[in-house]
């Protein structure tokens, strides 16, 4: 049914030679020691040649003969009673398929944590971009005309836009140790602050898109841009009343996700599938940028109220934190986002008495969801602002204060988790401070602070700022235990292995590092390891590609599978896998290895009391940013960022650096220019011309320092890298703005308007 240009996963020519191997032997990684054996050069990005020549096939590149074009009719009101759909009788509806909730054969729900979000509205509209009906037409002109011929009859209802005024709670969490009230009363100094962070759009450059193709068995196959095939699969089954085998999900090349393609693709897929079912033909549901920005999930806005108690000598004695997140109209992943936000809200700092309370509230705005960092960037911004303000109040350097506070081996977190290994907060802090010459530069910028000599006369001011963060590796709490992720490693009769997993490539390098891990274990080349296509009829559920868990958790499973494969072959043949696999295959036939997640040793979390090991271990990140601030216009230029990130073990230097650099720039955007203006529950700047992200000219030079403090629970020691840089970029930039101007910006982003207002207030 689908024809596509020839593609290949191998380089198009022998001239794309990989660097010569130093030694043919495998790299043996000892998680608690150094790399033994000879390191071989990391492979180039596996699908790189396809992406660089235009041969990679993204969803909108698929040619599907006979496919119609789909569109979504959305509410234009934030909260209303839905009374009916009016189809203009003057329009020729015979050439269009219309789907409403009445056409849903299964349950009218796109379930995530709660089953609260309908596929299509039946009675109550809860946000302005809510899907009410679907249309499909043979070409775009007819589709556009049909959209214009649809009217919604509604009756407006009062809407809530402020989470602090909402009485509908999606989730709440509370963690704590000690007695905060007593400790706070005994503190020499209490610093209080309220911090507000707004929506942030993932802004993957490839919009959401799905193509649904009816199957002969009455089911549907969807091809699309997604992070989690096994989220889309159950969504299709439930809404379309399909069996496991009738719903098939195939990932196309995915042009960025950043969390934005974690759960929303389920909605796009179900919509496309309903249209395809009714039309009896394939339907393309490809969003344009305007629709993507106005309807899809964003980073949760949050209000964080924070009280920090310290002694004169700088000792941290109490933290009392209240987090309120805006979940939007439906629950989506909000409880888990809130949980991660709460668990990280204290920052990576030892404190005997801590209370962190969080709640996530419903508003009549489009649902918020996953975005790189998943709640932690919001709360750690507040934590870092507090640390900097305490340092200022005590006359201490922000670096010295953090050296004093940062978690060390053996310290206990607010969930009573004892940090038993892989604790590298101090190391990333020192490495970033040293590489950026933090203290020396800060001496130079000192005259600018507090409106001093440089401040009054100068039209520009320079500053340097620092931030430190921790980020729980893998899923929160008992998440991995419940997920029970699986990977398969198959060897065919020629001795060639294939990895089968549901983990997805979306730019971060999954397709490159997994063959690399298997090849290293088996003592063969990466090109001698195949990857099965991400197709739910072929690959198992390896868990979602989220939470920086893929390299760590699924990577660990793949290594364990490879070790079993190697042992099985070598035990039978008595020779190395590389020399005997094909003989084994010819004699004994193919091998199928299933590797299931086994809980990490000595990791226990109690969901009921929210105590114990919230994460098996943590990654650690520090950033130092230098900025120039135009004191007339309030504009900020971020000149440089030094980022030091502890990722456990570097599996691929170039890819890991790429994650740090990309995450750092997203954080710089969050800090300075990325602002979603919400008016009456609608995003006013819902176009790329008005929602700005950093260009190459806005981007600082980013220097990456990768620190390796491995985790012993996984064979390779890797802890994940994707989200770490997102936690530190914004507070580092805002600290640098303070260093330059003497004013604190409490709300993100630190726009010119906010900076000028703060400067005026300070004068």
């Amino acid at each position, binding site marked *: 049914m689908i024809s596509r*240009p020839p593609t290949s996963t191998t*380089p*198009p*020519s022998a*001239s*794309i030679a990989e660097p010569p191997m130093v030694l043919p032997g495998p790299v043996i990684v000892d998680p608690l020691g150094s790399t033994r054996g000879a390191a071989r050069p990391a492979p*180039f*990005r596996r*699908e*790189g*040649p*396809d*992406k*660089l*020549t*235009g*041969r*990679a*096939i*993204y969803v*909108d*590149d698929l*040619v599907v003969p006979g496919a119609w074009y789909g569109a979504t009719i959305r509410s234009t009101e934030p909260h209303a009673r839905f009374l009916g759909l009016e189809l203009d009788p003057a329009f020729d509806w015979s050439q269009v398929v219309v789907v409403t909730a009445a056409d849903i054969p299964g349950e009218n729900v796109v379930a995530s944590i709660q089953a609260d979000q309908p596929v299509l509205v039946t009675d109550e509209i809860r946000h302005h971009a809510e899907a009410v009906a679907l249309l499909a037409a043979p070409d775009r002109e007819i589709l556009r005309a049909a959209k214009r011929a649809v009217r919604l009859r509604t009756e407006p209802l009062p809407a809530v836009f402020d989470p602090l005024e909402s009485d509908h709670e999606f989730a709440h969490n509370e963690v704590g140790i000690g007695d905060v009230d007593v400790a706070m009363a005994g503190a020499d100094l209490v610093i209080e602050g309220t911090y507000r962070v707004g929506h942030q759009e993932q*802004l*993957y*450059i*490839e*919009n959401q898109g799905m193509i649904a193709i009816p199957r002969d068995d009455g089911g549907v196959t969807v091809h699309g841009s997604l992070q989690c095939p096994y989220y889309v699969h159950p969504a299709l089954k439930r809404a379309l009343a399909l069996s496991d085998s009738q719903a098939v999900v195939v990932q196309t*090349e*995915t*042009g*960025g*996700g*950043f969390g934005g393609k974690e759960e929303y693709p389920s909605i796009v897929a179900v919509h496309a599938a309903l249209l395809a079912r009714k039309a009896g033909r394939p339907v393309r549901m490809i969003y*344009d*940028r305007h629709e993507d920005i106005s309807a899809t999930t964003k980073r949760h806005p949050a209000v964080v109220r924070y009280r920090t108690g310290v002694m004169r000598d700088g000792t941290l004695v109490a933290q009392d934190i209240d987090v309120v997140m805006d979940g939007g109209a439906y629950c989506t992943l909000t409880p888990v986002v809130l949980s991660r936000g709460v668990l990280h809200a204290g920052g990576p700092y030892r404190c005997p008495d801590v209370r962190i309370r969080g709640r996530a509230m419903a508003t009549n705005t489009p649902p918020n969801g996953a975005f790189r960092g998943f709640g932690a960037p919001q709360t750690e911004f507040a934590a870092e602002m507090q640390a900097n303000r305490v340092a200022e109040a005590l006359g201490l350097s922000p670096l010295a204060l953090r050296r004093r506070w940062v978690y060390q081996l053996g310290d206990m977190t607010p969930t009573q988790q004892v940090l038993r290994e892989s604790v590298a907060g101090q190391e990333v802090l020192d490495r970033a401070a040293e590489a950026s010459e933090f203290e020396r530069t800060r001496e130079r910028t000192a005259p600018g602070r507090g409106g001093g000599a440089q401040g009054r006369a100068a039209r520009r001011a320079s500053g340097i700022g620092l931030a430190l963060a921790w980020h729980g590796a893998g899923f929160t709490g008992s998440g991995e235990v419940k997920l029970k992720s699986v990977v398969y490693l198959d060897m065919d009769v020629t001795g060639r292995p294939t990895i089968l997993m549901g983990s997805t490539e*979306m*730019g*971060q*390098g999954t397709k490159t590092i997994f063959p690399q891990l298997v090849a290293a274990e088996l003592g063969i080349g990466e090109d001698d390891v195949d990857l099965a296509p991400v197709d739910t009829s072929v690959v198992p559920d390896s868990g979602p590609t989220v939470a920086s868990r893929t390299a760590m958790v699924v990577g660990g499973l793949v290594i364990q599978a490879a070790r079993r494969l190697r042992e099985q072959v070598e035990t039978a043949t008595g020779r190395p896998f590389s020399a005997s696999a094909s003989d084994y295959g010819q004699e004994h036939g193919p091998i199928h290895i299933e590797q299931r997640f086994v809980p990490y040793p000595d990791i226990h979390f109690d969901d009921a009391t929210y105590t114990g090991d919230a994460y098996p271990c943590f990654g650690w990140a520090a950033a130092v940013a230098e900025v120039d601030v135009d004191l007339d216009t309030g504009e900020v230029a971020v000149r440089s960022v030094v980022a030091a990130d502890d990722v456990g073990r570097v599996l691929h230097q*170039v*890819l890991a*650096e*790429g994650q740090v*650099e*990309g*995450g*750092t*720039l*997203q954080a710089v955007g969050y800090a300075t220019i990325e602002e979603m203006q919400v008016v009456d529950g609608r995003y006013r700047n819902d*176009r*790329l*011309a008005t929602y700005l*992200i950093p*260009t*190459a*000219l806005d*981007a600082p*030079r*980013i220097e990456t320092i990768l620190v390796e403090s491995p985790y012993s629970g996984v064979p390779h020691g890797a802890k994940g890298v994707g989200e770490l840089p997102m936690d530190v970029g914004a507070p580092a930039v805002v600290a640098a703005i303070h260093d330059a101007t003497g004013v604190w910006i409490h709300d993100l982003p630190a726009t010119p308007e906010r900076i000028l207002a703060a400067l005026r207030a300070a004068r």
Partner: protein
Amino acid sequence: MSIGFRVNGEPVELEVPGMRRLLDALREDLGLTGTKEGCGEGECGACSVILDGQVVDACLVPMCQVDGSDVRTVEGLSDTTGPLSPLQQAFLELGGAQCGICTPGMLMAAQAYLDAGGGPEDGSIREAIAGNLCRCTGYTKIVDSIARAAVHDLTV
């Protein structure tokens, strides 16, 4: 209307409405899906192609303006059966592409910069790709890739 032009050196003739977007003509009429659509309003640069030596957003160019022109797309940067171009190879080796959706447009903006004699200077490379948004890389490795290509012999 009938529009004749060259795509990657090959003459083509299309019977299309004059206001049809060059982007759609490339992707749908000619099957050259390497050129991507990111925003459809000239903000992201994912659809950048080289039109008579100039980088343009193919989503903003109507076909009536293409008559008699030379269009270069990512598919023309290297021979399908041959090696990658030095620019593509630099992106591959240095990590200039991640998710890959901005990559074709980024490569075309970079190629136009190199064709115009651009050098390895950080500031001028950033200027040249300022119209091309990338959300994955932070641009550092893209700038490095173009800089490397700029100091290599470019006979593409």
